[in-house]
C-alpha cells in the first residue's frame, strides 16, 4: 500500500456519480431521505455485477463441487476454482494452492492460530500484535496463548493512532514466533508499514500474519511484494458477498500445517484405521464451501479492477481529506486518528454528545455510520474513549455524501443545543 495515496491530477479518475448507478441499493431512501451509506468499513454494498454473477450461478450452474461427473457439478467446480484463480491474481499469490476459501477474515485468522500456531508454540514463546487490532486479531491469539502457555505482547501506538515502528522493533525478540497486525486499522484508518514489519519480523525468524480486511478494498495488495506469510480478508468489505473470505498462506507453511477441520473434500482416502488428507488448498476446506460466495467475490474483484484500485484509492483519499476538513470546522468535533497515512476512514467524537446519539440523529437524516467501539475495545481504552462515530468511504461515495454527513452532524449539535 502506497505510503501516500496519489494526489489528484494525472492518473485514473473515478466518476463516482457513474459508479453509484452500479449499486442498486443506493437508490433507496432511509427515513424518507436518500441513503447516504458511510459504513462500508463494516460491510460494503454490492454492485449489480456481483448480484448478477451470484444470481446467474444459482440459476444456471449450481451443484456440489469436486464430486459427480454430471455437467452441473463440473460447471460449479469450474466456477469455484475459477474464482480461486481470480483471487490469486488479485493479490498476486504464486499459486492457487496458497488461496484458502474461508468464511471471512475472522475464520482465516483462527485457522492460522489453531493450525499453525497452536501445534508449534510453547511456554516462553511470544505472539506480538499491535495496540490497534480488531478483536478478531486479538482473541484468537489469546486463545492460543491459553492453549500453549505462550504470551501475548502488544506493540504500542501514539495518541494520533500511529504505529510506533521503533517500539515494535524493540519488542521483537528471538522469542517472537508470530507477528499479527492489521494492514489498515478498522477504527482509525491508520495504514501500518507492513513491508517494514515483515522484514523486521523475518529477520528475527517470526512469521507474519496480516489482517487485510480494511486494506484490500482500498489499495492494491501484492502479497509477494509484502513478503508476508499469511494474509486474511473478507469478501463483504470488498463489494462481494458475506460468508466468503480468503486466507492466503505461503505454500511451504500451509503444507506443513495440519488440517483444522475434518470432513468431506479435505481427504484423499478414509478408512476407520487411517485417513490421508487432501492436497492444498482442499486440505483446509472441509465440507461444501460457499460456492456462490466465491463466484460473487470473483465478480467483485473484476468490478474493482474495472474501476482501478489506484483510482478508488485516490478518490477515497480526496473524500477523507474533505470530510476531515469539514468536520473539524464544526465546534466541538474531534477527529480520532490523525496518522498521516490513512485509508478510507474518518473517526470522530463531539463534545457533549455521545456517539450513539450522533448515530441515531445521522440515521434519521439518512446517513449510515458506525458508532461504538468498533470491535477494538483495547484501542478505545488506550484512547480514553467509550466510543467514536466512524464514517467510512467507498468507491460509490461522493462529495455530496460528505456534505450530507457534515449537515447531519451540525443537526446533532442543534438537537442537543
Amino acid at each position, binding site marked *: 500500500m502506497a505510503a501516500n495515496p496519489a494526489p489528484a491530477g494525472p492518473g485514473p479518475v473515478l466518476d463516482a456519480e457513474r459508479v453509484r448507478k452500479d449499486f442498486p441499493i443506493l437508490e433507496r431512501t432511509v427515513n424518507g431521505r436518500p441513503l447516504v451509506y458511510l459504513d462500508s468499513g463494516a460491510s460494503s454494498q454490492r454492485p449489480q455485477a456481483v448480484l448478477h454473477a451470484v444470481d446467474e450461478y444459482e440459476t444456471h450452474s449450481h451443484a456440489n463441487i469436486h464430486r459427480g461427473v454430471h455437467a452441473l457439478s463440473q460447471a460449479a467446480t469450474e466456477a469455484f476454482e475459477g474464482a480461486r484463480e481470480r483471487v490469486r491474481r488479485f493479490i498476486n499469490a504464486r499459486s492457487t494452492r496458497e488461496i484458502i476459501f474461508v468464511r471471512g477474515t475472522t475464520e482465516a485468522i483462527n485457522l492460522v492460530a489453531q493450525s499453525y500456531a497452536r501445534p508449534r508454540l510453547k511456554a516462553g514463546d511470544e505472539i506480538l500484535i499491535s495496540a490497534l487490532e480488531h478483536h478478531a486479531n486479538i482473541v484468537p491469539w489469546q486463545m492460543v496463548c491459553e492453549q500453549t502457555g505462550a504470551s501475548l505482547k502488544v506493540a504500542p501506538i501514539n495518541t494520533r493512532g500511529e504505529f510506533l515502528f521503533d517500539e515494535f522493533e524493540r519488542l521483537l525478540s528471538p522469542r517472537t514466533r508470530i507477528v499479527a497486525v492489521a494492514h489498515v486499522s478498522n477504527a482509525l484508518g491508520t495504514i501500518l508499514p507492513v513491508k517494514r514489519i515483515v522484514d523486521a519480523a523475518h529477520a528475527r525468524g517470526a512469521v507474519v500474519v496480516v489482517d487485510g480486511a480494511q486494506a484490500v478494498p482500498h489499495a492494491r495488495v501484492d502479497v509477494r511484494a509484502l513478503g508476508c506469510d499469511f494474509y486474511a480478508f473478507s469478501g463483504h468489505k470488498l463489494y462481494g458477498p458475506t460468508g466468503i473470505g480468503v486466507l492466503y498462506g505461503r505454500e511451504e507453511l500451509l503444507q506443513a500445517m495440519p488440517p483444522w477441520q475434518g470432513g468431506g473434500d479435505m481427504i484423499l482416502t478414509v478408512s476407520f484405521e487411517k485417513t490421508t488428507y487432501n492436497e492444498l488448498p482442499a486440505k483446509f476446506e472441509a465440507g461444501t464451501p460457499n460456492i456462490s460466495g466465491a463466484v460473487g467475490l470473483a465478480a467483485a474483484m473484476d468490478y474493482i479492477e474495472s474501476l482501478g484500485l489506484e483510482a478508488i484509492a485516490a478518490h477515497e483519499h480526496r473524500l477523507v481529506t474533505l470530510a476531515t476538513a469539514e468536520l473539524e470546522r464544526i465546534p466541538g468535533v474531534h477527529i480520532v486518528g490523525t496518522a498521516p497515512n490513512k485509508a478510507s476512514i474518518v473517526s470522530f467524537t463531539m463534545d457533549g454528545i455521545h456517539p*450513539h446519539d450522533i448515530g*441515531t440523529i445521522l440515521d434519521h437524516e439518512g446517513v449510515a455510520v458506525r458508532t461504538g*467501539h468498533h470491535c477494538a*475495545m483495547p484501542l478505545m481504552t488506550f484512547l480514553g474513549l*467509550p466510543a467514536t462515530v466512524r464514517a467510512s468511504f467507498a468507491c460509490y461515495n461522493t462529495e455530496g455524501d460528505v456534505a450530507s454527513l457534515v449537515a447531519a452532524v451540525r443537526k446533532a449539535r442543534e438537537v*442537543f443545543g
Partner: protein
Amino acid sequence: MDLKDLYRDVILDHNRTPRNFGRLEAADARADGHNPLCGDRLTVFLKMNGDRIEDVRFEGKGCAISTASASLMTEAVKGKSRARIAELFDHVHTLLTQHDAVPDPGLGKLAALSGVREFPARVKCASLCWHTLNAALADSAAPVSTE
C-alpha cells in the same frame, strides 16, 4: 418518527444535568451494568431502609438516553418500596417495548421515555439502568455475609 420524540426537553435536561449522579458512600448495595454492544457502563448505588430505597445514586458513562433514563429512574424510585419499584419496572418495560402502550399515569416524568420505542436500536440504552437497579436490589436482598 421525529427526533424530538426521542430527544425531548426532559431527556436533554437530565442528560445535561443528571440527578443523583455520583457515588453513594454509605451504600449498602450496588451493581454494575454494562451494555457490551455499545460500551455503556453504569453503577447503581442503594441505601436501603427496610423494604424501601432510602437513597440512590448512579455513575457511569453513556449516551443521552441511558444517562437521562438513569437520572429519571433515581428520582422515581427514591423512597419507594420493592413492590412499587417492581410495578414501575413493568410499566417502564411496557412503555419502552409496546407501540400502542398508553403511559401508566403513575410513571410521571418517566413517560418522557415513550419516544424510545420508535428507535428499537436504543431500547437497551434506556433499560440498562433498570436492569442494574434490579441487580442491586437482589444484591441487597442477599443474606448478609458474616465475614
